[in-house]
């Protein structure tokens, strides 16, 4: 059972998309696993042949349990590894993503719904029955909001771990985006509406470039050691319409053009919101960006996702007074913040990162 995030302890196999004897290559989807946040398509990391499928659909297993055996071409068939006993269904509330959405819309407290699906999972039909019962016999007092949903539990676990383990430091700088936005405006004038670039794409690329200047921030902190990462996979916080958020990665963001980044972001947001993310996108982020500018927030002080060591936040682009070369003018300004892990870097390197970020945004045509 792959670990699909720092917060994941177990997963339920929903289905296999391969069978024993099938040839697979790196990146192929071999099945779907349900975590507390979403259904994730599991990719295979090596070329080979599917030897055994050990987990059954509907089984919930702890992270690390062997769920399948894939052998290399020509390798001898292996003995069957032992599979841990499935986790009893009473341990946690199991809810399908559709049922969870419906429960929120219909005001149904999932804690009071008896699940009839596999391993007592609460299904869409269960929620509909509970909603109908609520209509017939309205509760004496309004139902308490369902704070036990898997999404909130998963976020709570990851963020609590981060706050417990990571000594955060925060740095902030204001960046003049006049050149960036003029560049974007000129680019978008040349494009049809479906090919236009969003300003966040330029911010993502500038972060990716600045990480080449300060590579210690593109890294993991594991076993009291800093592990630098060569590839720049940028986790991008995406809010979901039903509540909560996921942070899938834009893989190799530093090597993508702005158009490729826009395409990747569009694809990622669409799939995140329809619950079709892939395992590598969930696990491989080397740094995270959170952009709350759309919501009017001026400054973001984020919480780092372990084992990453940095999170970059962007606020709203605001027209502000700006002095340069003795002249006062009005400029579009964004607040960029860095949350850094003090075990991995110090404020000096963090400041160099923000300076590099600013420099890249002043030369958008080079991004």
């Amino acid at each position, binding site marked *: 059972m792959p670990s699909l995030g720092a917060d994941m302890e177990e997963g339920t196999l929903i289905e296999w998309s391969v069978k024993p004897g099938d040839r697979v290559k790196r990146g192929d989807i071999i099945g779907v696993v349900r975590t507390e946040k979403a259904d994730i398509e599991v990719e295979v990391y090596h070329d080979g042949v599917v030897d055994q499928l050990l987990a059954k659909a509907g089984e919930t297993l702890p992270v690390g349990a062997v769920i399948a055996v894939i052998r290399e071409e020509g390798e001898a068939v292996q003995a069957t590894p032992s599979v841990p006993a499935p986790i009893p269904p009473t341990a946690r509330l199991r809810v399908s993503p559709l049922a969870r959405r419906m429960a929120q819309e219909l005001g149904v407290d999932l804690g009071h719904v008896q699940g009839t699906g596999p391993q007592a999972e609460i299904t869409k039909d269960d929620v509909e029955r509970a909603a109908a019962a609520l209509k017939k016999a309205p509760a004496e007092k309004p139902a308490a909001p369902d704070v036990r949903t898997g999404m909130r539990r998963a976020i709570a676990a990851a963020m609590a771990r981060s706050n417990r383990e990571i000594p955060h430091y925060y740095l902030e700088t204001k960046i003049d985006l006049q050149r960036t936005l003029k560049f974007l405006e000129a680019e*978008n004038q040349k494009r049809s*509406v479906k090919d*236009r670039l*969003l300003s966040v794409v330029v911010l993502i690329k500038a972060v990716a470039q600045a990480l080449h200047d300060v590579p210690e921030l593109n890294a993991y902190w594991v076993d009291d050691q800093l592990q630098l990462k060569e590839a720049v996979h940028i986790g991008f916080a995406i809010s979901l319409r039903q509540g909560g958020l996921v942070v899938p990665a834009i893989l190799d963001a530093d090597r993508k053009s702005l158009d490729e980044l826009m395409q990747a972001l569009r694809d990622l*947001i669409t799939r995140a919101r329809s619950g079709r993310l892939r395992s590598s996108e969930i696990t491989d982020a080397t740094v995270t960006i959170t952009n709350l500018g*759309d919501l009017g927030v001026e400054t973001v002080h984020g919480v780092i996702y372990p084992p990453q060591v940095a999170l970059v936040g962007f606020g709203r682009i605001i027209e502000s007074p700006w002095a340069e070369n003795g002249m006062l003018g009005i400029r579009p300004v964004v607040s960029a913040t860095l949350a850094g892990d003090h075990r991995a870097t110090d404020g000096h390197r963090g400041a160099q990162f923000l300076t590099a970020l600013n420099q890249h945004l002043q030369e958008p045509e080079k991004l």
Partner: protein
Amino acid sequence: MNEPDIRLAVIKALRKIAPEANLDQIPSDENLREALDIDSFDFLNLLIGLHEELNVEIPESDYGKLRTLADLVSYLSDRLK
């Protein structure tokens, strides 16, 4: 195309990005980004949907004029005359 038809086309495009919202009850003068929790990605998708539906290219410089359902209907009516 008349205004009721344009309104229907806008509602159709909005339904794709906010399927859970009760769009029939959104007041015409309500800020759509706030009422439907629309971010800049959703807004771009709305414009792409309107382009596909009505064949109207909305330039970036006009984004600021399009805050409410009434704004959209009025803007598109002018562009489709």
